[in-house]
C-alpha cells in the first residue's frame, strides 16, 4: 500500500516539474513612454518558482528608484476534467522615475530557476517632457495630474525660503549673538508641520520673545511676507568655527492654476486651487568664535559683557560664633546667567557657608540684562578686628577687547568676644579636637606665698665680664705662682746640690783638722771637730737645717733614704763623741772613733751618690 502511494506521489511530482520546465518565461513589463518626474512601474514577471536569491536586477541607469523591489508570489492549480494545470507567478516590481527627458532603456535582469538562468530583454523607454501633451490621453485624470504638477512647478524655489540669520558673524566666546529664524513667503501659506529647530550645539541659548509677524521684507530684490519663527540669544561655550545645523519645516502652500476647462457658468472657476507641500531647510550657518585673549586675570571666570559690582557687609560688628552676610551684586549686560560667584578670601578664623545666589535677568535682543546677587554667610570664630579682602570680579569687555577687574571695598569687621561662652574659660568652647578628660579633677597648683627675691637684671655669671676676670685672675695667679715657686725650688735645689757636693769636702777638711788634734792629743777639740764634721756632713748632704738636726731626724732621714743599717752606727758614733768630749774617761781610743767616723761618712757618701 505504502509503496504504491509513494510511487504515485513521485509520479505527480515528476509531472509537475516537467510541466514547469517546459514553459518558463521571464519578461520585463514597462511603459513605452513616461513623463519627466512621473513615477512608473517596471515589473519583472516569472511564471515559475525562482531559486533563492538568484534574481539580479538590471542597472536602472538614468532612472531614480522610487520604490522597490517588492515581490509578489502567486500560484494556482486548476483541475479541469481530470487534467491538472498549475501556474506560478513571481513578480518583482520597481517604481522608477526619470529626472530628465530622453531615450532610456532598462537593462537585462536575470533570474535562476532550478539552476538554469533566464534573462529579460533590454526594454527601451522614452522619457518625455510634460509640456509635450500632444499625445497625452485626453482623460480627465491625466489632466488633473498634470495640473497638479503644473501647480508644484509654478511654486518657484525662491517663493518659500527658510533662513537662519545671525546678528554677527564673529564673536568672542561667551559673547551673545542673536539668531533669527525667518520664513519668507511670496505665496499664501495654509499650514505647516514638522518644524524642527536647530540643536544649537556648543551654545547656551536663550529664546527671545518676538512678534511673529508677518512683516513685509525685501530679500534679493523681491518682496516677501516674513514670519519670525523664533529668535534666540546664543552664547558660544567653545571657541572655533561653530556650525549651527539646519532648521527644517514643511510648508503647505496654496497655488492657483488656471484650468483649461470650458467655463460653463459664471460660478465656474477659471483657476483651480492646489495645496503644494514643500520641505524647507536652512543652510548650515557657521559662526566664528574667537578665543578670549590670554592671559586672563586670576579672578576671571568667564563673564563677558559689561558689569558693575557692588558688595556690602550686613553688619560691621558681630560677636564671635555668630554670623554675618557679605552680599555681592553683579549687575550689567552680558552672559550674566553664566557668571559664577566671585571668590571671597576670608581670614582663617572665619567659616564660610553655602553661598546663596539670587538673580533677576531679562533677556532682550541686545543681550541678557539684570543682576545676580551672591550672599556669603560667614561665621566668625575668634574675636578681633579683621579686614576682609575685597571681592574681585573680572569680566571681558568685547567692545574694548580687554579684561576689566572690579574690586569692592575691603570689609572692616569687628568681632567681639562671644557672650554665650562661659566667662572663666573662654577658649574651652572652641576646643573640639583634643580630649582633656584628665584635667577634670585637676587644677593648677597654688601660688607661691613667700616673698620672692626680686631681680632687676638678667645677668648670668657665666661668660660675664666678672667671670672672665676671675678666670684670668686664676690664670695669672697660677702662672705667677708657677714662676715664683719654680724659681724658689730651683734655687733651693741648687743650694742643696752645692751643699751636698761640698759636704764631703768640708767633712774631709774637718776630719783632717780632727786628725791634727788627735796627734796633738787635744781630746776636747778632737771630739768637737768630729761632731762638727759629722753633723755638718749630714746637714749639708741631706739639706737638713741645722736647727732641725737631732739624732732622731738623722735616723729618720737615713731610714727614709734606705740606709737604716747606718743610722744606728752613725748615731752611736755621735753619742760616743758627745760622751767623750766632756768625759775624762776614754771609752774608745781617738784613732778608732776617727776611723769609724771616716768609714761611716764614706759609706753614706757612696750610698747617696749611687
Amino acid at each position, binding site marked *: 500500500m505504502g509503496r504504491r502511494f509513494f510511487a504515485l506521489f513521485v509520479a505527480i511530482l515528476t509531472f509537475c516539474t516537467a510541466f514547469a520546465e517546459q514553459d518558463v518565461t521571464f519578461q520585463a513589463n514597462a511603459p513605452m513612454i513616461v513623463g519627466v518626474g512621473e513615477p512608473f512601474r517596471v515589473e519583472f514577471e516569472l511564471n515559475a518558482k525562482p531559486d533563492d536569491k538568484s534574481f539580479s536586477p538590471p542597472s536602472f541607469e538614468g532612472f531614480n528608484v522610487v520604490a522597490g523591489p517588492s515581490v509578489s508570489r502567486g500560484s494556482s492549480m486548476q483541475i479541469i476534467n481530470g487534467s491538472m494545470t498549475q501556474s506560478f507567478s513571481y513578480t518583482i516590481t520597481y517604481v522608477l522615475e526619470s529626472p530628465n527627458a530622453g531615450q532610456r532603456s532598462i537593462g537585462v535582469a536575470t533570474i535562476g530557476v532550478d539552476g538554469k538562468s533566464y534573462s529579460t530583454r533590454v526594454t527601451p523607454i522614452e522619457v518625455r517632457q510634460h509640456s509635450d501633451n500632444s499625445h497625452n490621453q485626453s482623460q480627465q485624470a491625466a489632466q488633473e495630474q498634470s495640473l497638479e504638477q503644473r501647480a508644484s512647478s509654478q511654486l518657484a524655489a525662491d517663493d518659500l525660503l527658510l533662513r537662519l540669520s545671525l546678528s554677527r558673524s564673529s564673536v568672542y566666546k561667551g559673547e551673545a549673538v542673536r539668531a533669527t529664524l525667518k520664513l519668507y513667503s511670496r505665496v499664501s501659506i495654509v499650514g505647516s508641520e514638522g518644524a524642527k529647530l536647530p540643536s544649537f550645539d556648543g551654545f547656551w541659548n536663550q529664546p527671545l520673545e518676538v512678534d511673529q509677524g508677518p512683516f513685509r521684507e525685501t530679500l534679493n530684490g523681491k518682496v516677501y511676507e516674513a514670519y519670525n519663527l523664533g529668535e534666540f540669544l546664543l552664547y558660544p561655550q567653545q571657541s572655533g568655527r561653530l556650525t549651527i545645523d539646519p532648521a527644517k519645516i514643511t510648508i503647505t502652500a496654496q497655488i492657483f492654476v488656471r484650468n483649461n476647462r470650458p467655463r460653463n457658468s459664471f460660478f465656474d472657476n477659471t483657476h483651480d486651487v492646489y495645496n503644494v507641500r514643500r520641505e524647507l531647510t536652512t543652510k548650515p550657518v557657521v559662526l566664528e568664535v574667537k578665543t578670549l585673549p590670554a592671559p586672563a586675570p586670576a579672578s576671571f571666570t568667564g563673564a563677558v559683557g559689561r558689569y558693575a559690582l557692588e558688595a556690602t557687609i550686613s553688619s560691621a560688628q558681630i560677636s564671635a560664633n555668630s554670623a554675618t552676610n557679605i552680599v555681592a551684586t553683579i549687575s550689567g549686560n552680558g552672559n550674566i546667567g553664566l557668571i559664577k560667584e566671585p571668590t571671597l578670601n576670608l581670614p582663617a578664623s572665619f567659616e564660610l557657608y553655602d553661598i546663596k545666589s539670587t538673580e533677576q535677568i531679562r533677556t532682550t535682543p541686545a543681550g541678557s540684562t539684570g543682576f545676580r546677587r551672591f550672599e556669603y554667610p560667614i561665621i566668625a570664630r575668634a574675636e*578681633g578686628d579683621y579686614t576682609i579682602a575685597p571681592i574681585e570680579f573680572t569680566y571681558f569687555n568685547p567692545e574694548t577687547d580687554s579684561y576689566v577687574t572690579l574690586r569692592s571695598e575691603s570689609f572692616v569687621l569687628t568681632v567681639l568676644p562671644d557672650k554665650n561662652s562661659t566667662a572663666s574659660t573662654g577658649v574651652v568652647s572652641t576646643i573640639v579636637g583634643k580630649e582633656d578628660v584628665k584635667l577634670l579633677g585637676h587644677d593648677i597648683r597654688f601660688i607661691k606665698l613667700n616673698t620672692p627675691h626680686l631681680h632687676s637684671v638678667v645677668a648670668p655669671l657665666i661668660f660675664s665680664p666678672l667671670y672672665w676676670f676671675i678666670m684670668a685672675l686664676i690664670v695669672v695667679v697660677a702662672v705667677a705662682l*708657677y714662676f715664683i715657686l*719654680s724659681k724658689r725650688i730651683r734655687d733651693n735645689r741648687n743650694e742643696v746640690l752645692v751643699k751636698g757636693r761640698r759636704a764631703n769636702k768640708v767633712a774631709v777638711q774637718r776630719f783632717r783638722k780632727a786628725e791634727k788634734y788627735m796627734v796633738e792629743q787635744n781630746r776636747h777639740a778632737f771630739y768637737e771637730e768630729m761632731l762638727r764634721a759629722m753633723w755638718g756632713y749630714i746637714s749639708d748632704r741631706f739639706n737638713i737645717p741645722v736647727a732641725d738636726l737631732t739624732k732622731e731626724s738623722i735616723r729618720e732621714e737615713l731610714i727614709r733614704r734606705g740606709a737604716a743599717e747606718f743610722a744606728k752606727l752613725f748615731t752611736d758614733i755621735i753619742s760616743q763623741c758627745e760622751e767623750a768630749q766632756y768625759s775624762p774617761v776614754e771609752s774608745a781610743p781617738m784613732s778608732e772613733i776617727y776611723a769609724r767616723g771616716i768609714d761611716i761618712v764614706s759609706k753614706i757618701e757612696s750610698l747617696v751618690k749611687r
Partner: protein
Amino acid sequence: MRYFVIILCSLFSLSAVAQSDSLAVAEPVQTVVLDSKLLWDSGNKDYIDGNYASALERYTAIEQQGKYSARLYYNIGNCYFKLGNVGKSILYYNRALKVQPTMEDARENLRIAEAQTKDKIAVVPEFFLNRWMRSVRTMISCTVWSVLSISLFGLVALFVLLFLLGSRLVVRKSGFYGTIVALLLFIVVTLFAASSRRDMLDSRGAVVISSAISVKSSPDKAATDMFVLHEGTKVTLLSEVDGWVELTIADGKKGWTEASHIERI
C-alpha cells in the same frame, strides 16, 4: 710642700670672692622691697579670696617696677589661668621657667595650661641623651653652674701646678690625672652653664596671645595664609620687620604674623 697649701688656700679664697660677687649682682634691690612686699602680700590675699583680677593687678604692679622673679611670674600665670586667659598664663609660666628652670610647679601648671590650647603640633622627639642632659642641667641654676665652672678651673690650675712643680713622682702623677679629671669636669660644667645662659638670654621664644592668628607667607596683609595658630601656642621668632615677625613652630612650619599677636617670653 708648704707652698702648695698656700696656693690651695689662695684659690679657695678666690672662688669665695667670685661667689660673693655673683650674689652682689643678683641682689641690688633693697629700696623698693617694702612696697613690692606689700603688693605681693595683698596680691596673695586677693588670690586666696578668689579675687583673681585684683590679684593680677597687684602682681603686675610689681612687674611694672621692672622687677622680676620666677615666683612672681608663676603667680601672674596662675591669675591669668584662673581668669581664663590661657595664652597669657602659658606666657608667664614660660617666663617663670626661664628665670628658674628648676621650678617644678611652674612646669606642672604649664602642662595643664598647654592641655587647654587648641593647636596640636607634632613635636620632633628629642634624642634621649639630650633629654637627660637637659634634666641634669635644669637641676642647678645657671649661677651655680658658673661658680662650679670657676672653681673647677681653679682646680685645674692647681693640678697643673702640682704636676709641674711636684718634686716627687707621686705628687706629679696625681697632679697629672687630677688635671685631666678636673679639666673634663670643667668642660662639662661650663657647657651646662653656657647652655643655661643661652636659655636665659634667649629672647626668641614667644607665645601666641590672640585667640587665633593666621600666619602668612610674607609680612603683608594681603599675603597668602599659610596656617592658623591659636592662643597659647609656643613659637620661636626668627626675624622682625616693622610690626611683623617671622616665626617657626615646633614641627618646622614657618611664616609671618603681626607682632601684636604674640608676646616674647
